[in-house]
């Protein structure tokens, strides 16, 4: 993949959290499946966080 410093710069340029996560996955040389799973994991984390907040 391309120069990692430049990729990092492009990541910083993105405002959308999901776009950043996607580019970070690519930056870390993750496979398509791994990137996909990172999103699933993230969603689960968000749900858990929301559940915890609701029960506080």
């Amino acid at each position, binding site marked *: *993949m391309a120069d990692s410093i*430049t990729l990092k*710069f492009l990541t910083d340029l993105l405002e959308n959290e999901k*776009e950043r996560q996607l580019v970070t996955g690519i930056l870390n040389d993750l496979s398509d*499946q791994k990137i*996909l799973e990172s*999103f699933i994991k993230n969603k689960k984390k968000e749900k858990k966080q929301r559940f915890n907040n609701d029960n506080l």
Partner: protein
Amino acid sequence: MITYDYFIKRDEKKEVKEFRPKKIPKSLPNLVYVEGPNSSGKSTLLHLLALGLHGLSGDHTIRPVLKEKMKNLIASEHQSLSFDIEITDKNDGVVLSSKKNSLDKKEILLRDGKNKIITAEEFSRRYKLIYDIPENPTERLKDLTREIKDTQSQLGKRVGFFRGYLDKIIYSIREAKNPELIDKTREELQGVEKSFAKSQLKIESLEKQLDVTRVYVAVKYCIVYKEKVQDFTEQLNLIKRDNRKRAKGRTKVTEEYAELHKELSQKIQEIQDAQFKAMPVLKSLFEKKEKNRLQVWQDIDIEKEINQHQLRSALKRETMHFILLLKRLLDSYSETKNHKKAAVYNDLIGILEKYKNLEIKIPGVASTIPNFIKLLRKEAKKYDDDLERGRNVSDTIESLKAILEAHELAVKDIVPKLKLISEKKTTGETLVEHDEIEIKFEQLNNKKNEAEDAMNYYKMECAKLDIKEKEIYAYYKKRLPGPTYSHLKSYRECDLREKTLSLNKAILDEKVEFDNKKEFIAYLKVELERLENRQPHQYQEHLLIFQKLLKVAEKLEQKMLVEFDESIKELINKSVDKSKLSKEKQKYFDFVFKFLANRIGFLRHIDEEHSLEKVDLIDGNILTSEGRVLQIADLGTGQSQSAYLTGLLTATDTNRKIIALFDEVAMMDSKSLEPVYKKLRELYENDKLLIGVIVQKAEELHIVDKTC
């Protein structure tokens, strides 16, 4: 002379690679210029010399980027290194030797000509090591912007691959067992089945309505025409019986008289037709209240009413009476809520019909014009009977007015003319045969035939409806006045025939809908079975996340391959129009400018080094951390680098011997390099320089001794 050797072992995961000097000779003159292709070992030679001469620990002039590379060579986990360097002076006496014997140990031993170990501190006192890599900032900027362009493009493509992968996954989830889709399909099936049942009921109801209408029209008009046939037959018989009367009617008249008489007969016929047309409506509306007057009106002898109009005025009086009644009725109809609703709907339909081809959604109902018209029609249909009743009354008023008009014309125009001709004596005019009775006989006979045809047609209709001929009258008397047919009483013959046609069409349309629904139900059942038999997908529950992610990937791909690509191209081609910059583009450029400054880090200009904050490629200037603004165009390449390097060599204190290592001087042409060589040679000749190595990238390996 510089004599060296090294061994590098690098773990590249799949294999362990070993490197030794191959292309560049292991012995080089003290002042040398080395040209060579990539991977020929030029930079490795310079890194080794700097490493072996305490380059990482003493007080020396070494660019940070080179220090990083030196550290990478000696301290990386994936590679290990050993080397042996010896430097002799002009008289071939060893001056310095540096060794790193073990691949595993980091220890480097630097000794002088007496084999005495020299520490970093001691070395710094005796030698000034200069290791530099001249840079051309403008070239570097070009490279970096192209690098951004390439990276964006690669990233965009990579995101595109990911989007493709995601697309496939989403497709396979959709193709897999999907409980949501199964539920949706099941719901759809239930909905269509419900609608199918409704359709069936609607067809049954329409068929019942059609049946009632057909029976009503067939029975009623079979009797009506039968009575007419009887009436005409009686009249014809009367004429036939009175032969004397017939002979009396036969005269010779002028052509004008014959024409006028024909016209009068037509007017009488028009009045009779209009009377026949209006009678069923008047009967249905006023049968009880106006029974006697209706009978009077029906029994009026039209011929006598016209010929003896001075004596008879029943037709005019009774017709006007009924017009008045009908008008009052019409006013009362138009005041009803249903009638008003129907009028509003029909007016709206009329207006909207003009604009039905426009793609406009009606606010408040969020419906397109054709759909809204459909909705209005459906609603208006509920008031069809009310409207029909109103229309019948209006039409009947018109029929009655036509009677008055025909009567007026006959009595005021035709009859006086006829009278005038009869009173006038004919003088030499051509006379024609005129049999008044015969004409009347013929007219009556024609009417009787027409009535017979109509009666026979309705008899056939009754037969089709399983009503035998002998039962027709009983049907007419007993069943037709009942509640089943009461709503049809106000309809005229033509309206009833129209209603039959429209019911037939509605049934056909509904049957098409019915068949479509039946087919759709069969399809949905097969589809449901197919969906239920599929295997579930491991990512089934994440479909929604993936769908959202797909949009993110599409947007990002578009951003990288189109938006950012266009922006960076504008920068490269210097075609940015600052006055038309969008916020997004401005932000992008700002990021690029800061990134470029960060990548270049430091910049030397004339004799100073600057830390960079921002490189503005649009305005063509560089902002330094100290707040200075340098113009990119002013940054000389070869010359300023030459001045800088010469400055480095000149500014050295006199007590220390110089060891000068210069890498990648490609951007400096021979003219700009000459002062550097001159200075190096001067220092070497004056014993102020121990070694000077300048390397440069080239297609072929080329070693030049610069000591002489």
